[in-house]
């Protein structure tokens, strides 16, 4: 009995250590854990597209901003949020609810020490360090690839998921590619591109509503195209828009929105003998996007 008790005690002690050992303690460790640079040698074009994408700078704002900085500010300081702490050293993964979509691997694979390091990097405006945290190939092609976990199980270690199966994948870590049931469907993107308020958190907040608009305004109106049909033509992993590229963003918006303008000039008879010269401008904006503009 004493022996059994000792074994059980050791098991209970060892469990958290094992779990802890699998999690990243630093930004560098987390970045390394999800590093996709080995994909580049065989998928150079896709990798180059991804490098310019917002997925590759998911914690950076448009044009180099550090959008998570308000969360890192000290509680009570102007600009601080409900998620801020009075000391950056108290920050935990749960203080960054944005990780749900902007860095999902932090929730599954990072210790709270990563949140502390990130908060300090944000306060120090250390863009280079923050930029190490990305939505890499592994995040979409493993971490987020399965949404029917009760039926299909979670994503397996050493396996990538894609729109088609590759039995022998020439990578030292990811030797197999299995077919994902949803990777070509809008719901795959909808995991992060938002239905509306995130009410599952103890402090509700709202980021993107785009997938909600897709479901309730596009699909409901008879739309049949997927996010991938429009934003990943020929497998493009830039997944435009890229708001750091002004010209490309303008062109994309111009292709999505049509503006029609009609004018009329006349003299309005307000009352007998009183003419008011007037011009009337009628505008009509038509969208062929599958979601509201703007959204994200």
């Amino acid at each position, binding site marked *: 009995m004493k022996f059994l008790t000792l074994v059980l005690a050791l098991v209970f002690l060892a469990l958290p250590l094992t779990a802890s050992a699998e999690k990243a303690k630093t930004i560098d460790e987390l970045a390394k854990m999800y590093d996709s640079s080995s994909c580049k040698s065989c998928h150079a074009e896709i990798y180059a597209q991804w490098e310019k994408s917002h997925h590759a700078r998911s914690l950076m704002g448009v044009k180099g901003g550090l959008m998570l900085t308000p969360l890192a500010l000290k509680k009570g300081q102007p600009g601080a949020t409900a998620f801020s702490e009075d000391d950056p050293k108290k920050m935990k993964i749960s203080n960054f609810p944005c990780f749900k979509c902007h860095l999902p691997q932090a929730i599954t694979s990072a210790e709270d020490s990563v949140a502390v390091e990130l908060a300090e990097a944000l306060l120090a405006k250390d863009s280079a360090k923050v930029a190490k945290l990305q939505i890499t190939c592994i995040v979409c092609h493993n971490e987020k690839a399965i949404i029917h976990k009760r039926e299909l199980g979670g994503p397996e270690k050493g396996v990538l998921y894609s729109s088609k199966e590759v039995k022998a994948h020439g990578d030292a870590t990811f030797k197999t590619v299995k077919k994902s049931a949803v990777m070509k469907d809008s719901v795959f993107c909808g995991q992060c591109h938002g239905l509306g308020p995130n009410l599952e958190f103890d402090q509700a907040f709202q980021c993107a509503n785009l997938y909600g608009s897709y479901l309730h305004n596009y699909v409901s109106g008879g739309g049949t195209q997927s996010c991938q049909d429009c934003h990943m033509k020929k497998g493009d992993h830039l997944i435009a828009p890229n708001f750091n590229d002004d010209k490309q963003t303008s062109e994309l918006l111009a292709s999505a929105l049509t503006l029609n*303008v009609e004018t009329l000039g006349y003299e309005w008879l307000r009352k007998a003998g009183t003419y008011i010269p007037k011009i*009337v401008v009628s505008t009509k904006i038509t969208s062929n996007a599958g979601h509201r503009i703007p959204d994200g």
Partner: protein
Amino acid sequence: MVVTAKTADGKEIGKEERHYHPQATNCRDTKEKYGAQWKTANIRDTSIQPHKPKTETIEFDLPEGVRSADVTVDLFYEAVNPDNKYPIHTITKKVSLDK
């Protein structure tokens, strides 16, 4: 979208703006919030939705003696702040009261 009417010599005689975007508060006060960490839910949505064209009718009264105007409609996208603009379409039309 900004609609501007100017006289032939460039003097502005009218300007109107329309803003198309979802607007959220924190649901604890009535101030619109910007930034996911501040927002709780949309309270108004003027954005451009699929299958729902946005139509506007804008009228300008011309000053006495002015018989024509150049009307310009600028459609652009703003990201993060109003200074970060992405032009989409600009259409200019000359409108005259004379036949």
